[in-house]
């Protein structure tokens, strides 16, 4: 799947049980996101942002409704099929970077490529290309503990794009970074969106981070509030 992927959420409901109570985190949510667009997903805590991200990424399944990515309803897939689908179609970037501490930067980036039908040499070349793209070609053999927070997040982004997925999902990717580093990471995401036509869905509390997106989706109590165009989006070039 290398074409920009549209994302459709159709009447999706997701509930969690906590302390004997059922929480309706997403409540018959309907929304559409165009392929190749950079979305920022905002809303107060508990509004269902991360839950939506997990459903779109196939990390979790909806209780009701359909999650359609590039025309495929992933809500119908089994856990094994979802695992395969995730490996082929989605790249994740998390707030805590989520790198395996015992592996080097290149080995971390190679991990999702192990799931692709390519040989060792191709895997290594693709991982190195991804690391070059995020500006870390000189840190390939470093372990996460030997990298700064910004570098770790860039390795995570390299891992997310290594398999050339059409969708990148980012959950508070700059939450643990200082402002300068955060801007660099956001610019990188923006670059991936503009040059590689990735559909990016980024959960954030930070309006400044959201300002890097094309559109800002507001969620409230599990329902869609509104989707705003972002008139203040800075241009990547020259920043």
């Amino acid at each position, binding site marked *: 799947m290398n074409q920009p992927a549209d994302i459709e959420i159709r009447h999706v409901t997701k509930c969690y049980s906590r302390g004997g109570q059922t929480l309706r985190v997403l409540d018959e949510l309907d929304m559409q996101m165009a392929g190749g667009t950079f979305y920022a997903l905002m809303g107060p805590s508990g509004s269902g942002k991360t839950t939506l991200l*997990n459903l779109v*990424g196939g*990390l*979790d399944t909806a209780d009701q409704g359909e999650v359609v990515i590039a025309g495929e309803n992933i809500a119908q897939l089994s*856990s*094994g099929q979802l*695992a*395969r*689908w*995730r*490996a*082929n179609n989605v790249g*994740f970037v*998390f707030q*805590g970077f*989520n*790198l*395996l*501490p*015992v*592996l080097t930067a290149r*080995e971390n980036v190679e*991990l*999702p490529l*192990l*799931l692709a039908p390519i040989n060792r040499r191709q895997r290594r070349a693709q991982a190195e290309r991804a690391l070059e793209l995020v500006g870390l070609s000189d840190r390939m053999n470093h372990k996460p503990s030997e990298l700064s927070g910004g570098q770790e997040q860039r390795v995570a982004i390299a*891992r997310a794009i290594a398999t050339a997925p059409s969708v990148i999902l980012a959950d508070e990717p700059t939450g643990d970074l200082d402002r300068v580093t955060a801007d660099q990471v956001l610019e990188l995401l923006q670059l991936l969106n503009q040059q590689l036509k990735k559909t990016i869905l980024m959960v954030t509390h930070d309006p400044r981070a959201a300002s890097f997106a094309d559109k800002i989706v507001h969620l409230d109590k599990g329902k869609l509030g509104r989707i705003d165009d972002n008139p203040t989006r800075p241009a990547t070039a020259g920043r």
Partner: protein
Amino acid sequence: MALVPFRYNLRSLWVRRSSTLLTMCAIGATVAVLAGMLSLQQGFATMFAESGRDDLAIFLRNGATSEGESGMTREQTELIKKETREISLAADGKPLAAAEMYLAVRRRKVTGGETNVAMRGVEPMTFQVHGDALQINAGRIPIPGSDELIIGQDLVERIADCKIGDTLVINVTPFKIVGTFRGKGGYQSEIWGDLDRLGEALQRPVRSRVIAKIAPNTDLAAIEARYSEDKRVQPKVQTERSYLQSQTQVLSITFTVLGIFLSAIMGLAAVFTGTNAMLSLVSSRTHEIGILLSLGFRPFAVFLAFQMEALLLGTLGGILGCLMVLPFQGAQTGTMNQTFSEVVFAFRTTPSVMLIAILFASLLGLFGGALPAVRAARLRPTEALRRG
């Protein structure tokens, strides 16, 4: 299905090397017990099995399972020697066969206490029957008809009054030690003297067996069948090898059963230790499991990754266990054999013992790791990522 790279498991074990080492030690200690018991069993079994020969026939009283139980008259043993045509002949034309008397006698140990020692009354032909397999390492062979003894070399340092020049009193008859000998297997743990003189001193006028050199490919069953029709003597006939193997059976089984029993108990403890270590390992790596699952690794791949890690831990523990027992390789110990006499044998940690021990340890690792591996594989990616 893509597997989680093995280097991930290797490095994870290295990073957590303290707990890795402790788990390895727990498994290693268990395996050392099993390997130790098996090494004793091997030492005991091979001592007899290796020393037994197929070209020597043992004639016992029909129904006897050992020399201690067997008893034949002088006339009967002479008849066997003279009338069994399959027995090879010496250069002087005499049959290469000898009657022997065997009895376990209580003797004092050098270190204190008492033990049973095998005494064997032999004929001059006994030495020709054994040939080069039996050698005098010091002193000389007893003069036929004299009150002289030779001592198996394994007993010299273990039993009192067994050095050359010493006098060993048997009942009331003093015997002089005139030599020591080396032979394969259990013979090295025996005291030999003249058949008639020892029989008299021990007040045992019967013979226990006839040992004879036989022609290659002799059908011993045919000899036994032929004698079954003879009213004068109906001996039980077998090769020396099969006779000696039958003598070690009970103790070999005892060692094996004891080893398995102790290992089962300790193994259960090691499985719990392994499970506990792996559970804590899974718990501390829940977040990493979430990462692997979120990247698209299937739950079964995660299960295999943790099983591989447990298998590796078990195998390393097994190797450690073998290393623990290897320093005892060749160490000698003594025990009572089936005829209640002291035999000395060496601790033998053979490649097959090590292989069994390592396989056992690997199984311990697999059993210990199964539950944690299932738990890891059943985690939902979101749950696993959240727990980190």
